[in-house]
């Protein structure tokens, strides 16, 4: 085959080179060189992706599988290679990952300027890009798992970047371990796939499925549920979402790149990638849809009362990921991926803008102590506004198109679909509300740095300043994308993706219903804005009143339903107690170590008895010697005495 020179491995390996250079030598290089390296390699990678996109545009047929992929594991009949495949889905993901990734790298140069461990940060960031590109380029499950675990590692390293903060380390571990729970599901799914297909290659599995669909629904459901567990872990869905809010301990660009734009969407990508399996397992799809909807709703409720700007955004991310799951669950994979893409734009932008705010305020993250930043940070304000409008789903911003596509698909998805759609719509209302709450509290009104109850640190607003251009440039570019990113339209997008994700969602839309739903969605978003305006825009005490009137509810939301505490006391503590007392004391001390001590004790006792025998008195030795000699003699001469012939005979006789 005419190998189109796409250099697929290079797309992944370039960031790896950046990681190695910075990781090994970064501590000794000047900052400028570190950032050059860190920017150059992702940029080259992006350039390769863009070139590939251009070639596709020019008519290159997809998918393109790399020929002669090097072998990784080959044992018996099982064979897995480092195989990279480019298809439409991968191309979209790659554009998002490397494009948004590069912008965030650029932004980080400004944001991390004054941090120690500058080189380390960029090395990790490049490492993340490497694993993420491997994840999306992978041609088989195992290679995908490499990226899957790898991004988890990069996420762990970056969350715990501030090594002098215990909370950062805790959050990193929490993220990694929670992800591992998901990875467990992924592993089991892979084993099931090996058992059923004997291969882990996407193309072979798909081919086998289409050739003779022998896979039973039960088996497919089992596999898919395991995969869902993996996706739920990575994409922070119920019940494994708990790590994502804590992950905000990492530097803000990390939150933007990993915990909003790219890594957390890997679960959605994975479901879209394996849709051929999911299509055989409607039950699993229902689970996905229900999980997604529940998560979207649940996270949105929590986001309403959060006061930390990054936590609001974190719960918002969880909620939006729930939408994507909903999209996957109702079979609208392309809509989910579409939302994934637009979400990457506006959520990345939101985080970067939030970072810009935090940066400008010298580290302040509490929105109750912000306000009035519209004038001091105009560029940030306007880009943020674009993002808020986008996420709330106002026409013609990007979020409108993608969210609308998902909700429409849900609406058309049978009777349960209607219910899911309802919940989704309510969630949209809340989304709009909390985003505008954030917007009002941060940018509008008067500065509240002085009115804060404890009144610590009055210095912020004297320093409040707009961020440097290197941070603003990504903001502006992402804002443009947040505005225009959806204009391509779901129909064209779905048509492009169809070879990779199937045509299931691209049902002929009933024009009137579609229009009605769209209008409804915009109205709901507007309602959300309006309510937010009532509560926060006019600086009445309405918000506090409401909070007081609904005190129990407010408390529940404020404490995030005490989910963390419940997990700790119902899962983590019992495990620790079981390990410490059940295993450690009962099993280990009494049985295992006990048996050793018993053995040693018995041996020691025997030794003690024999020691007494060894009195040290020569004459008693002589006596025992004599009796030993007598015994040996009798033994040896028994044969002679009994009439046998030889010593050997008598020994033989004795042994028998």
């Amino acid at each position: 085959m005419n190998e189109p020179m796409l250099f697929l491995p290079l797309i992944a390996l370039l960031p790896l080179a950046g990681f190695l250079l910075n990781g090994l030598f970064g501590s000794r290089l000047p900052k400028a060189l570190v950032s050059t390296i860190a920017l150059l390699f992702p940029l080259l990678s992006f350039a390769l992706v863009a070139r590939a996109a251009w070639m596709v545009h020019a008519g290159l047929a997809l998918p393109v599988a790399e020929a002669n992929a090097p072998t990784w594991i080959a044992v018996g009949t099982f064979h897995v290679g480092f195989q990279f495949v480019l298809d439409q889905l991968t191309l979209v993901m790659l554009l998002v990952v490397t494009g948004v990734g590069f912008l965030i790298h650029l932004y980080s140069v400004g944001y991390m300027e004054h941090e120690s461990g500058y080189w380390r940060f960029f090395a990790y960031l490049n490492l993340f890009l490497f694993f993420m590109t491997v994840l999306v380029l992978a041609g088989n499950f195992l290679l995908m798992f490499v990226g899957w675990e790898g991004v988890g590692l990069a996420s762990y390293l970056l969350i715990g970047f501030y090594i002098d903060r215990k909370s950062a380390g805790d959050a990193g571990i929490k993220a990694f371990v929670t992800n591992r729970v998901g990875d467990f599901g992924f592993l089991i799914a892979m084993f099931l796939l090996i058992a059923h297909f004997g291969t882990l290659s996407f193309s072979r599995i798909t081919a086998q499925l289409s050739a003779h669909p022998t896979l039973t629904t039960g088996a497919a459901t089992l596999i898919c549920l395991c995969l869902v567990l993996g996706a739920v872990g990575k994409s922070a869905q119920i019940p494994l979402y708990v790590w994502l809010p804590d992950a905000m301990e990492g530097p803000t660009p990390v939150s933007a790149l990993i915990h909003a734009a790219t890594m957390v969407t890997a679960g959605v990508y994975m479901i879209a990638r394996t849709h051929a399996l999911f299509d055989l397992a409607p039950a699993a799809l229902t689970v996905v849809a229900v999980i997604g909807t529940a998560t979207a709703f649940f996270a949105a409720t929590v986001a309403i009362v959060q006061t930390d700007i990054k936590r609001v955004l974190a719960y918002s991310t969880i909620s939006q990921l729930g939408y994507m799951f909903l999209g996957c669950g109702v079979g609208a994979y392309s809509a989910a991926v579409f939302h994934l893409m637009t979400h990457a734009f506006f959520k990345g932008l939101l985080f970067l803008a939030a970072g810009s705010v935090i940066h400008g305020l010298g580290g302040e993250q509490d929105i109750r102590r912000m306000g009035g930043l519209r004038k001091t940070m105009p560029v940030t304000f306007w880009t943020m506004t674009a993002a808020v409008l986008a996420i709330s789903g106002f026409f013609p911003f990007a979020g409108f198109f993608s969210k609308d596509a998902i909700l429409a698909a849900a609406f058309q998805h049978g009777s349960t679909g209607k219910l899911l759609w309802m919940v989704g719509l309510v969630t949209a209302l809340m989304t709009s509300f909390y985003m505008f709450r954030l917007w009002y509290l941060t940018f509008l009104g008067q500065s509240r740095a002085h009115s804060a109850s404890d009144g610590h640190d009055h210095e912020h607003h004297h320093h409040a300043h707009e961020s440097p251009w290197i941070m603003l440039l990504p903001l502006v570019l992402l804002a443009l994308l947040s505005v225009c990113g959806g204009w391509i339209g779901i129909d064209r997008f779905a048509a492009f993706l169809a070879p990779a994700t199937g045509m299931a969602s691209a049902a002929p839309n009933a024009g009137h219903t579609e229009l009605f739903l769209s209008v409804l969605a915009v109205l709901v978003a507007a309602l959300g804005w309006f309510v937010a305006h009532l509560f926060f825009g006019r600086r009445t005490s309405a918000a506090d009143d409401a909070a007081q009137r609904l005190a129990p509810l407010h408390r529940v939301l404020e404490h995030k339903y005490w989910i963390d505490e419940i997990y700790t006391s119902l899962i983590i503590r019992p495990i620790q107690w079981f390990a410490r007392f059940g295993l450690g004391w009962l099993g280990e001390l009494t049985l295992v170590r006990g048996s050793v001590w018993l053995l040693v004790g018995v041996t020691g006792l025997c030794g003690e008895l024999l020691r007494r025998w060894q009195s040290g008195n020569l004459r008693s030795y002589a006596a025992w010697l004599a009796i030993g000699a007598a015994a040996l003699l009798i033994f040896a001469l028994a044969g002679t005495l009994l009439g046998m012939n030889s010593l050997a005979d008598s020994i033989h006789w004795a042994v028998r």
Partner: protein
Amino acid sequence: MDGMILTLILLAPLAGMALILLLPDRDEQSTNLPAWLALLTSLFTFACTLHLPAHFVAHQTGFQFEENLAWINSPAIRYHVGVDGLSLWLVVLVGLLAPVGVLASWRAVKKDRKLFYALFLLQQTAMVGVFVSLDLMLYYGFWELSLIPIAVLTAMFGRNLGDASAAKAALRFFLYTFIPSAPLLVALLWLYAHTGSFDYATVQAAIASGTLPGWQLAWVSVAFLIAFAVKVPVLGLHGWLPDLFSEAPVAIAMIAAGKLGLYSLIRFHVELFPALAHRAAPWMIALAAVGILYGALLALVQKDFWKLLAYATLGSLSFCTLGIYGFTAAGMSGAVLQTLNEGIIGAALFLLFGVLYEPASASKLADFGGLATKTPRLATLFTIASLALIGLPLLNGFVGEFLVLSGTFTGVSRVWATVAALGVILSAAYMLGAIQKIFLATGAPAHATGHAAGHPSATARDLTGSETVAVALLALLMLALGIQPGLATDAIEPALQSITQSLRMGAQSRNAANLSPTHPESATVIASSPANLKGGR
């Protein structure tokens, strides 16, 4: 050269030992001459072991580099050595670990250096001997010999000599591993009495022929199994492990567990008694799968890093056992690979923990904290080794675990494989927890005052140049084996083919045995049928 290389590998450490013992006593305190000699010897030996893979004919079953000389005529004990794909890399591993061990002891051993390094090299010979012996009695000799330096060195150079717990740990280890060796010897003699030979192939053929009395043979195999299972150790028989890890000198602890027992399980239990191994397999699989969880759970709550390492090791060794007794091609390859991995990762972790432990003799996790900035090289390499241990893809631990688990899942039991896979979650929790407690901020109030003089965090040092090189090489090895496991598995697979072939025979006879459950000994009886005889040999 090929004919003598194994003998050279066996003799080189002994020669080094002799040289060290001949050194004058008086320079003991001032110079580190014994360590230098030991290092040179072990490097030379390592170079010799590298000759093996370089000239090994891959994809060929049977033993290579064989040497078969008459030694004792009656009883017929021969000096018969050779390696196949199974033992090849283990020999290299022992060769590799010896210089690492010497480096790890460089600063830790301060007195009686001559004795320490002499015994250390003796241990190396014994371990290589275990891997290359093809005569059962010769094997037994090396097996016993390998136990002694561990016990002696632990008792004499242990960490807590003051309260005599080192001596106790040494005694426990010695008794616990030595006592099962007695039935092993009896079993060996029984085999000799019934086959007239100690030669591995002869005995194997005799057992396969099924002419040996059945129930006695079953007991013989049990004697073999227990002796090895203790040495691995398998769950339930691991009582010596935490003690030894806490007390033994680093260089000794890093070689005490795993390799010898696991290799012996494959070679002298599974390959020698295929039919009986089949009967033991369900138990061993259950023990292994539970052992993975058990080790991980206990590692999770340990407060002392040696103990943590001990239970982590128990977990990863259980992976090997699981793979071996799954009898699947993938599982066994994974198990052998995992044995190598455990050796490499364990060595790195032991060396690093040793560096942490040495300045203040502190091993409580809570005593450390915030070392990442102070000891960056240590922290980086420790993180890499930990990630390899918990099975991050592209590092070696993952491939082994994956092969074992997938082999178990697809070929043996989905339930046990799932149970074992749960260990994957927990391993991340305890290793990352350890990293945090040692290297990252702990947030504890003691932290502020803790940097007073004498506090472990204050006295901690970073790796020296040679230590960095050693661990970095190990880390590279982890990466290389993680990306190209074929480096090792290509040689391992043909060796395993012959095993799985004999196992298939065992499976046949087991199935036949299952048909007549009233006669438990019928397994061997049926294995003796002429059809099987022809099929096997």
